[in-house]
């Protein structure tokens, strides 16, 4: 299976492949974003308890889900990077980390903003909140570790190791906080877990989740390309790329 992927293990090839995929991702995420946002904000009915403030769910839940999805893809990339020593996988890891961190932050921020009217406090020590906060710390740790190394090859390897160690811990963290929390007090969040959401509320949510996923993919591809360019900036193919790019731009100007 890895054999057929091998050509793409070359930076140049995968740079081009990412370039080809990128427009599709952009278009797809733009469309789903527009549909989801319009539907969710304008057409979905207001919640009978929370009124319109519940609409923050259309950002909150997708962001929270993508925060985890981003980490899973990082973990897979890290595994590939360490076992098969593929540098592009390392690049994937660190291309994804900041994106994941931002999604996590969005989930936390929207959650806190939602919590103030709903629970009367910005922050409570709830299981979900705590594990999300810890996820943010893990992301920050990976990013900080990467940036602390001046040699980017070593940095990528170190970040991959940490990602992998983190992924082993993530489920443990998840369950530990869930159990810990339920021992002290009833799950605060349970009142929102109504048996089922009204279907008109659910559809926009699903679309928004898809939109966030596509957006995550877009950002990953962009950062992936940038990272390759930065690392290979003095390789002939990149120099050629810059030349042709300049030439095209000159022609356009004319």
């Amino acid at each position, binding site marked *: 299976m890895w054999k057929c992927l091998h050509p793409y293990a070359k930076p140049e090839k995968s740079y081009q492949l990412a370039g080809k995929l990128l427009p599709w991702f952009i278009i797809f995420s733009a469309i789903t974003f527009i549909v989801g946002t319009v539907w969710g904000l304008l057409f979905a009915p207001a919640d009978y308890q929370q009124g319109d403030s519940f609409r923050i769910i259309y950002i909150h839940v997708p962001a929270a889900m993508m925060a985890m999805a981003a980490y899973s893809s990082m973990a897979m990339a890290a595994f590939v990077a360490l076992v098969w020593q593929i540098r592009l996988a390392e690049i994937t890891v660190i291309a994804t980390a900041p994106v994941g961190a931002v999604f996590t932050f969005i989930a936390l921020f929207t959650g806190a903003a939602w919590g103030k009217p709903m629970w009367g406090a910005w922050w409570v020590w709830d299981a979900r909140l705590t594990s999300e906060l810890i*996820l943010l710390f893990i992301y920050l740790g990976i990013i*900080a570790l990467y940036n602390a190394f001046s040699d980017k090859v070593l940095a990528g390897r170190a970040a991959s190791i940490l990602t992998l160690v983190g992924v082993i*811990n993530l489920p443990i963290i998840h369950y530990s906080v869930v159990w810990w929390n339920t021992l002290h007090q009833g799950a605060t969040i349970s009142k929102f877990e109504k048996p089922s959401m009204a279907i008109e509320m659910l559809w926009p949510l699903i679309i928004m989740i898809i939109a966030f996923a596509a957006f995550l993919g877009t950002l990953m591809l962009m950062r992936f390309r940038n990272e390759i360019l930065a690392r290979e900036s003095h390789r002939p193919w990149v120099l050629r790329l810059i030349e042709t790019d300049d030439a095209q731009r000159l022609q356009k100007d004319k």
Partner: protein
Amino acid sequence: MFNAFLQVVSKELKGAFRRRSDILNPIWFFVIVVMLFPLAIGTEPALLKRIAPGIIWVAALLAALLSFERLFKDDFIDGSLEQLMISPYPLAWIVSAKVFAHWLLTGLPILLVSPLLGIFLSLNMDTYYALLLTLLIGTPILSLLGAIGVALTVGLRKGGILLSLIMLPLSIPILIFSTMAIEAAAYGQSYLGLLALLGAMLVASVTFAPFAIAASLRVSVS
């Protein structure tokens, strides 16, 4: 090979005994924390009892966090770490020895002073046993996980802060499971399940952590 393990451990211990502070520091840190809290919070026995396990575990965690920087840093600075890395034994094995020595110097003293703490914070017998057991299982896990963080950051100038950033998420589950077990004990419930969980984590980290540590060292010391 087993001889190499023993040699590394005994060298660490010798050095620590020579410095003295390495042995007393964790104990002393403990005593400080446990002394300061009654001073700072007030001395109602009920309140103290309620928060005692938490305080002890947080103190253990902080003590571990503080002692970690030492784990490879001194060796890195004076070049011994390089020498260990080019020794003819598997690096994972050598670092296991170092981590074991580290636990002997930080985890064990904490266990040894814990009876004192029990008295200071008026714990009852059951709670105390639970505390002891969780410390016994939990501190080696902390040492192993911490060593990964240290190994990743030892060559870096900004090591300190990064280390705690990395360590914190890794150590929270242990903290939570342990305090849960102690609380269960305080309410007279069974906490075997939680202990088993901690035990499983210990086994897993003993198995995998040395390799992660060795790999991290090869990356960060170069």
